């Protein structure tokens, strides 16, 4: 099975995810933050939540580096793709 490690506090991660989701929804609908800043904040919060799931629920933090590499390799490619299509708007 997986490498032996100290088990994370899953309920605490769940609380983090719940609180971050509430902050996201509140920021999107209740705040008067300028649109560009709002998009940056929402994307940052979403990526933060995604990392929490990947690191602690999928145990990526405790896996061997070879296994991490399999999952991490497409991430830069995904970022490049998204940045490339965003430039459609900028240019």
């Amino acid at each position: 099975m997986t490498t032996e490690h100290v088990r994370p506090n899953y309920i605490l991660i769940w609380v983090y995810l719940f609180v971050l989701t509430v902050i996201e929804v509140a920021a999107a609908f209740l705040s008067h933050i300028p649109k560009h800043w709002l998009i940056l904040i929402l994307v940052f919060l979403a990526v933060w939540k995604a990392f929490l799931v990947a690191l602690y629920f999928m145990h990526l933090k405790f896996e061997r580096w070879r296994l991490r590499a399999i999952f991490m390799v497409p991430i830069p490619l995904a970022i490049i793709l998204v940045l490339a299509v965003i430039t459609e708007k900028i240019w």
Partner: protein
Amino acid sequence: MTHATATADVMHPPVPAEPGSGVYSNKLGMWVFLASDVMFFTALIGSYIILRFGVPEAWAAPGAVLNVPLTAFNTFLLICSSVSMVKAYAAIADGKKYFLRAVPGKLLRDGGLKFWMLVTIICGAMFVGVQVFEYIKLIGHGFTPAGFREGSTLAEHAATDAVRYGATTAGLYGSSFFTMTGFHGFHVTCGVVSMLYLYFTKVLPEKYSAQDYRGIETIGLYWHFVDLVWIILFTIVYLI
């Protein structure tokens, strides 16, 4: 040497197969699949960005067409299912095959693999149910993959406030919305069906143990990935 023997020599090179990365093949296969699924959803998100930011006209404001509180509840459901999945994994890793068991001195009973897997399946099925309900309501109000249906409530709203409802971009919005959430819903459905299969063929007959729980770990990875993708989609499609 016959043709068959020559083929067999090619298939079995003289150097023996390497032991690999130290993980069992189901898990390695799932990670490779998830890596490919990252690119699949990135392609969908990339297409959405091109469509949304490429058109000069206004896109519908967040919450104007979609029911955000309902979807926020659905997000909560999926996060809960992710926690119950990882609790199921932790339970069987500790050898807890049972449903619920009383713990002396504690008010709450201790959940085992059977309990946490059932909670995960119920939460996943509820997510799909809420999404189907959302689709029915949206289509009823006139929001279809082809845009706002003529004569519908949303088409009337769009006629009075074209900017808020994104009247000219409704077709692009509808097609990208239903494609992205539809493919994600398909992933969730596949996960629920797979977990139901495992529940009746492996979990209830107590075939998993603290020594071998590969199926739970593998389906768990898939399930958490589905949750991870939804976290991103919820922000991009519903909140921005």
